[in-house]
């Protein structure tokens, strides 16, 4: 199985950037900053009914060709409205964490790979967020700091025009080490570095090499034939998703959380533990 989007646009660049980082080209990494957008969007013709500040929406019958019950699956039942479905599901907390998981699945996944933590998780999470209200209720502005056992702090932030805007080119990851920084742009894969010479540095045969994918389809087919791993196996996808969900829980509770990434529990924290899973509508189960 292949989960995630490692290098789906330019298979070599993201991997090469992570290899440069993992092989010490910027020294010992202490901070990773990931930049995600902060937009939520409604259909162009959407009208709140009643209008803001009431934030209501009038339920509609689902289109006859759309099996809405099946589409909902295990998620809680709510009356249909196109503003909740189709493309727009990603702004609704029942189905998504917003851009945190939408783009975070791309960006933070690469960050985890470059941090060497794609089979584990953070040990501490501190998040704050401003949530939309109404039909869309995901965090629209957010700032989450993750501490890892390897000493790295990963800061995930919504940047659009804010003071967090990296001005390095938009959405991407900045790895900051003792000897400089390296930037990987998402969607395009452009690399930048405080020392541009680093970007000409070949990865030597004896150094760490990451899985080279020839593109997701071929990579997946090869994995089926060989029974080996894809570039983004399930565990890595799980670790990226759970990283982001931990950020959401921290935001919703408005406090710091401690996490055991081996047992995948919040030790001695029943309040956070209660939020680790969302019970499923009948007849669904894990």
């Amino acid at each position, binding site marked *: 199985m292949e989960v995630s989007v490692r290098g789906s646009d330019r298979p070599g660049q993201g991997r090469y950037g992570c290899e440069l980082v993992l092989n010490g080209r910027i020294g010992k990494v202490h901070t990773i900053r990931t930049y995600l957008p902060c937009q939520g969007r409604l259909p162009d013709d959407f009208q709140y009914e009643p209008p803001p500040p009431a934030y209501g929406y009038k339920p509609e019958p689902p289109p006859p060709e759309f099996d809405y019950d099946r589409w909902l699956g295990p998620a*809680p039942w709510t009356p249909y409205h196109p503003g909740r479905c189709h493309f727009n599901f990603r702004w609704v907390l029942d189905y998504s964490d917003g851009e945190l998981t939408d783009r975070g699945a791309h960006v933070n996944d690469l960050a985890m790979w470059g941090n060497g933590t794609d089979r584990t998780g953070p040990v501490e999470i501190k998040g704050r967020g401003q949530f939309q209200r109404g039909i869309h209720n995901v965090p629209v502005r957010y700032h989450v700091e993750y501490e890892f056992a390897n000493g790295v702090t990963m800061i995930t932030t919504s940047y659009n025009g804010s003071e967090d805007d990296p001005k390095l080119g938009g959405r991407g990851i900045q790895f900051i080490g003792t000897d400089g920084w390296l930037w990987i742009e998402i969607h395009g894969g452009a690399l930048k570095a405080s020392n541009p010479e680093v970007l000409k540095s070949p990865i030597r045969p004896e150094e760490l090499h990451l899985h080279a994918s020839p593109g997701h389809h071929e990579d997946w087919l090869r994995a089926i034939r060989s029974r080996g791993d894809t570039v983004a196996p399930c565990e890595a996808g799980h670790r990226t998703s759970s990283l982001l969900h931990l950020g959401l829980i921290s935001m919703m509770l408005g406090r710091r959380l401690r996490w055991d990434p081996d047992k995948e529990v919040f030790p001695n924290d029943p309040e956070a533990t209660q939020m680790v899973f*969302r*019970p499923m509508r009948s007849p669904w*189960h894990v």
Partner: protein
Amino acid sequence: MTRSIAMLAVATALACSAASNPAAGAEETAERDVDRLFEAAAAYEFGGDERPLIEVAELVRSSREDPDQRRDVEDRLLKLLESGTPACKRFVCRQLWMAGSARSVPALATLLPDDELSDAARYALERIADPAAAAALRDALGKCKGKTLVGVVNSLGQRRDKDAAAALVPLLAVRDHAVATAAAWSLGRIGGTEEAWALAAARAKAEGRLRRVLDDAYLLCADALVAEGKKDEAAKIYLQMCAADQPRRIRFAALRGLLASRPEKADPAAVEAMRQLGQHGGEYLLSWMLAGPYTEEGKSGPDLFDVVFPPEKPDAKDVNWQPVSAGDDSAVNLAQLLGGENRAAYLRTTVVSPQEQEAVLELGSDDGIKAWLGGTLVHVNNASRSLRLDEDQVKVTLKAGENTLLLKVTNGSTDWGASARLVGLDGKPIVGLKVVAK
């Protein structure tokens, strides 16, 4: 209402910019405001004014640090569960997912048999750690039916509630397939010795879709036994599920469980199970005998393609055949096993077919390859190429019984290897084929 919730309500209303008269500042005014807020929330219908719900949600969030405030908010939410509209109650259950405690259990439990609201009630109840929540779910088993019963059964499984197992076992035999399926999954997830017995007994009588569900649940149960430290018990289940009469996907899953549960021993049963699995038709031929390398001075790999070495001669003696296996990529890596340039090697195995049948021999090689089946040359390709699985396709006829397959693989330089498998004319696996490396 306590002073604290009133002041909290004022602060929250200010934050929401929806307070009716924050400037009044009086506790009594705030108290009336909160009463009105919850009354408005109780009347909520989908499509209506969401502000009361937004403000109540803010109160829930901001009350979390003060236990007194949180208790007050929870009590008000529970009143909404009694008096509110169904739409309001759905909202309340989502709040109780975050804010619910043992105090919420009785009110949530009354909703479990309700066709419309049972799922919403479980959204909160399933996550409340207090044993009262589990007891309420168990109690609901006798009050629910159909979809609501399935939901309650699933929640008990999700909680891994051991105390529910005795009540779940009889549900394995009910006519409602959805309920029986849910009971199977829940028992598998709960795990344990008695649960395993119950699943085994149910499996013995079931067929079709339910049997497959029970197979999965039985393996899940074995995984749970391993987590409990009952590895030998789990291993018995895994071994049973590795047997040749099980579906292949079950055998793979069981073998994986077996190897994970007893890695400290080179378990003969596991090795035998692996060998059997490697011998299914449609699989790549993984077990071979290898002879080589063979060279001739001055001759390159392509030159050696037609040079007859001893393994090609029917009555050759003194050929040193060694057992080898294909690697994870389904190919025999001759570069690793033998190495060297400008040489040839031979791979031999025996395919046992239950009947005479046509098949397709699919080959990959680096570099050149010749193939004989039952002593007859069936394929030649003096290629110089990298190995790609299934690159050459050769139509062959297998006879009933043993068919010796002999491959000659030449190497020019660097990489060297070969892969082979047999599939039906339709490309699908051939049932009943066995492979023995000899």
